[in-house]
């Protein structure tokens, strides 16, 4: 890589934007929001962010980073450790493998794609927790969480779209 020290630093700082923003979403998703019923159906913001970067800049979010984000989320949320990492890696893997489908599509089409991916993520998350804890959690709460996740995706996209200007172009 050419360029001086500051340029390199700038380049690496920009490369870390997706990771940093995913961590921000992890923190946002555990913030105590005083809205009745919210805590049971808090949207999977991190999954939405990972999906976004997997569609637009998968190289900037290597699987190791996705794994670390998942572990951070499990740790802070109190979920079975590793379960969030499995879900995020699955979201990332499925999205990257279907990236050709998402290429040059309208927002609505990508959103529909996210609906499918998020549904798989919600089911996987529910299944992993049921198997891990050994308790049949009522599916409606997980379903409402899924609905809310799909509903906030445009907002997540809008926030990350702005940040996209900061990241270096895909090689």
């Amino acid at each position, binding site marked *: *890589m*050419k*360029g001086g020290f500051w*340029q390199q630093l700038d*380049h690496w700082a920009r490369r870390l934007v997706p990771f940093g923003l995913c961590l921000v979403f992890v*923190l*946002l*998703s*555990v*913030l*105590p*929001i*005083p*809205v*009745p019923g*919210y*805590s*049971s*159906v*808090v949207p999977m913001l991190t999954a939405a962010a990972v999906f976004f970067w997997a569609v637009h800049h998968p190289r900037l979010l*290597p*699987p*190791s980073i*996705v*794994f670390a984000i*998942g*572990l*951070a989320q499990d*740790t*802070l*949320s*109190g*979920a*079975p*450790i*590793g*379960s969030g*990492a*499995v879900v995020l*890696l*699955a979201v*990332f*893997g499925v999205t*990257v493998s279907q990236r050709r489908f998402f290429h040059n599509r309208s927002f609505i089409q990508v959103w529909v794609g996210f609906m499918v991916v998020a549904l798989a993520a919600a089911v996987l998350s*529910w299944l*992993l*927790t049921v198997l*891990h*804890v050994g*308790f049949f*959690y009522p599916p409606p*709460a*997980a379903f*409402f*969480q899924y609905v809310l996740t799909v509903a906030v995706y445009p907002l997540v996209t809008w926030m990350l779209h702005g940040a996209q200007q900061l990241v*270096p*172009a895909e*090689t």
Partner: protein
Amino acid sequence: MDFRRPSLIARVAAPFRGAAQRFALGFLMIVAFATMFLGKADTHFVERFRTGVTDVAAPILEAMAEPVAAANRVLAHLGELAALREENQRLREEVSRLRGWHAAALRLEAENKSLRDLLQYRGPDRNTFVSARVVADGHGPFVKSVLVNIGTRDGIEKGQAAVTQLGLVGRVTEVGDRSARILLITDLNSRIPVLVEETRARAILAGDNSERPQLVFLPQGTRLSPGQRIVTSGHGGALPHGIPVGVVASVEDGVARVRPFVDWERLEYIQIIDFEVAAGGASGGNSSASGDAVAPRPRLPGAAPAAPSTGAAPAVTSGGAGSDTGASAPRVQP
């Protein structure tokens, strides 16, 4: 510097990079599954990892939670402004009603004190508490826990009770240096020894991730009716006796459900009780606490003003104190 023009090496390496990424993805998936199993097998290691991460994240979360709390306060104030007149009228009526109770409480307090002096009874409720701020919510459909900004350096230990002015919130399950996780009484894994205040019937309050935890292991023939108050029994020695928990909300098909007193949506500050267990008690106390300590400890910067109470809980109920010295687990019939 032009990042858009891939070098020759990058072009040649591109297919290998893709393969490496796929391999890494599969490998990390296996590692993540292995972590889940490890979490089940070696809880101590996982707990240390968790508390290490939460210790780092707690100050950041605290800083992030402040604007949310401020915005919430502004909204709450605006809402209160709208109903100021009605609220004022309601409060006047409540004050006049409570004056009667206040007089009764003073009379009973004096009577209680004189009776205790007569019996030379030394109550078990010698506790201190530390106030803490809720910095993260264990969100989601599967977990009911919160993270607070105090830890071992503030004298917090596993098993201690967390309360608000309204009642029991939960128990400390993980403690880091500067953060601790409180398992809420609604969580699937929460089991709290309680009793029905009116009938003194013992039971276990078992969370099931719903808003209304169940009463299980009630003695046979116990008659419950909605509205009866449920308080901690103090059995098992882990929690103080008499912390208000909730009221019986419903009894349907033999399943009694309790509506907790705590307002889960406004869980901003909580107090962790440093319960000094009576002689022979199981755990939960800090042995360094002096025997007669009843005053709140110095609190952390940013922590809420504590409830004006001293002792076990803001509203400690009376009665049944003699049974509290027993440290054995409650033996109740299903």
